[in-house]
């Protein structure tokens, strides 16, 4: 899945550039997770640190660490 003509800003490069940064992850269900991005893999599985869960925009829970299965992910926002 390597890139075509463009160089730096393909998905893989974007992901490695935001490791360790605070991110927002939105799932297809509309649930939002905010936390520090520990790691991502090729399935878009995500590990988040200090993770907060928002349902309908309201804080629902906090997790120390969380693994999110990639098939549920709509987007990862920096």
């Amino acid at each position, binding site marked *: *899945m390597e*890139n*075509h*003509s*463009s160089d*730096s*800003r*393909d*998905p*893989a*490069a*974007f*992901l490695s550039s935001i490791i360790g940064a605070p991110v*927002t992850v939105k799932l*297809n269900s509309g649930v939002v997770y905010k936390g520090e991005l520990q790691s991502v893999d090729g399935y*878009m599985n995500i590990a988040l640190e200090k993770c907060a869960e928002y349902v309908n925009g309201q804080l629902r829970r906090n997790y120390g660490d969380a693994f999110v299965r*990639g*098939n549920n*992910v*709509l*987007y*990862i*926002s*920096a």
Partner: protein
Amino acid sequence: MASQLLPLELIDKCVGSKIWVVMKGDKEFTGTLLGFDDYVNMVLEDVTEFDYAGGQTKMPKCLLNGNNVCMLIPGGEGPVATS
């Protein structure tokens, strides 16, 4: 043989310019396309997310999962400019 443009080549021409992404279901996104891969996962900048209720969410940068992408419109302004 007339030269034809492959679908992914069309998207490659959009890198660096505004794009309108329509998802399966109700969601739509607009933003500047920074890059994409073979699954049409896309990195977008200055993103606006439109939900079906008319709500808008702005994000500086995001990686959009290609899984639920339905349609891409180069230069698209999003569902706002329908006049």
